[in-house]
């Protein structure tokens, strides 16, 4: 689906990460894995450090911290926010949603709307589209878009195919209505027939958590996990990414009339995925930031705003850039967006202090 929206802007972005550092090599050695093998994977895939949330800290906490820092930096009165869009796959509860809980924590207006949007690595672009819709056509002047996950909690330590990958982070972006006709072009796609490629099979209504869903089993490759853990078929995800994402990226750039973007904020799966994906999209790999996973881990829905904060914060403080944003993952789903960003406030990424 192609959707064009105008008369909105991203006023600012902040990202708060987990505060516990994990080291790919050290963790692998502790798990009894050969150092040479670990270093081979580390170099080939781009896995080094990641930051995870300490016990008791959730995506809501991380996003609240990012939101408070952002609203303070922008000197925005919280009562002026008309809507909260909260993108997460790791909410605090089945009910109520994180958006309502954040609304309460921030003391927002009772006239505001607040809802969650369930998506992972493609989720920030989905959330931006919803926030933009509300500003462009929905009567909102200001929308707080939060996106964050604590996927490190969902993996099993005995599953080396996913456990070393994920970091935890929460993001906040303020989206505002403007009088300026500066269009963004969004391209969305879904392949629900392959939904089992990335999944947490148990813990929801279809298969409630029980003693049997906690039983750890080994797969054909020796990875251990239970039905309540996140599982991912890495090879299938790679194929899907290369098959679907380049077309969406090229369609967004074509719709925007750009030969090339000035800023590229791709979901940071890992350096290996991004290096191949950039080429498949016809982009100069040197123009695509791809170093976040080795610094912070795969941050799921927070990784696109993390690229803005980490790679473009200084530039965006004074300049407007043609931004290509792209996410892809659970669903399976993908989303690409091309539009102007900046000047705006992109705060430095910080670990949660508590």
């Amino acid at each position, binding site marked *: 689906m192609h959707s064009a929206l105008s008369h909105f802007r991203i006023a600012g972005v902040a990202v708060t990460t987990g505060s516990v550092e994990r080291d790919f090599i050290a963790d692998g050695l502790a798990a009894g894995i050969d150092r040479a*093998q670990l270093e*081979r*994977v580390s170099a*080939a*895939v781009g896995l080094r450090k990641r930051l995870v949330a300490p016990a008791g800290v959730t995506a809501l906490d991380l996003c609240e911290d990012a939101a408070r820092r952002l609203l303070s930096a922008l000197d925005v009165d919280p009562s002026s926010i008309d809507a909260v869009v909260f993108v997460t796959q790791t909410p605090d509860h089945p009910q109520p949603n994180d958006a309502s809980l954040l609304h309460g924590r921030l003391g927002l207006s009772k006239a505001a709307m607040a809802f969650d949007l369930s998506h992972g690595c493609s989720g920030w672009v989905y959330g931006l589209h919803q926030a933009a819709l509300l500003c462009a056509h929905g009567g909102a002047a200001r929308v707080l878009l939060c996106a964050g996950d604590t996927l490190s909690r969902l993996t099993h330590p005995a599953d080396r*195919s996913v456990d070393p990958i994920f970091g935890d982070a929460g993001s906040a972006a303020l989206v505002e209505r403007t009088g300026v006709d500066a269009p963004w072009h969004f391209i969305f796609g879904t392949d629900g027939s392959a939904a089992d490629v990335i999944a947490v099979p148990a813990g929801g209504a279809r298969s409630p958590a029980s003693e049997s869903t906690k039983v750890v089993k080994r797969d*054909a*490759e020796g990875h251990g996990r239970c039905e309540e853990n996140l599982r991912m*078929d*890495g*090879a*299938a995800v*790679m*194929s899907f990414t*290369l*098959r679907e994402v380049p077309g969406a990226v090229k369609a967004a750039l074509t719709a925007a009339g750009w030969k090339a973007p000035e800023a590229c904020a791709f979901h940071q799966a890992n350096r*290996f995925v991004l290096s*191949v994906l950039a*080429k*498949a999209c016809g982009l100069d790999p040197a123009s695509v930031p791809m170093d976040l996973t080795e610094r912070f881990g795969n941050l799921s829905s927070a990784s696109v705003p993390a690229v803005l904060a980490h790679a473009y914060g200084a530039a965006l403080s004074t300049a407007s850039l043609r931004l290509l944003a792209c996410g892809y993952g659970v669903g399976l789903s993908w989303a690409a967006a091309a539009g102007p960003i900046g000047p705006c406030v992109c705060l430095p990424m910080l670990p949660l202090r508590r």
Partner: protein
Amino acid sequence: MNEAARLSALRKAVDVLTDASPDDRLAARPNWDSLAVLLVVTHFEHDYGVTVTGAQVRACATVRDLLALLPSSQP
């Protein structure tokens, strides 16, 4: 593209197969592991537009079996 050209491309794309011959047994190659499987899947998708599963790659006994996953009409 003939088998020699496909083998050459496979050797470039997969680090543990840089000196591989068609009859080499994959299980005997050092570091023939899940990363190597991912590299094969990526190479086939990116360079040929051919989707293969990790299970298909793991089921291959030899390098020739890997190349046979590519349709013969593939350029």
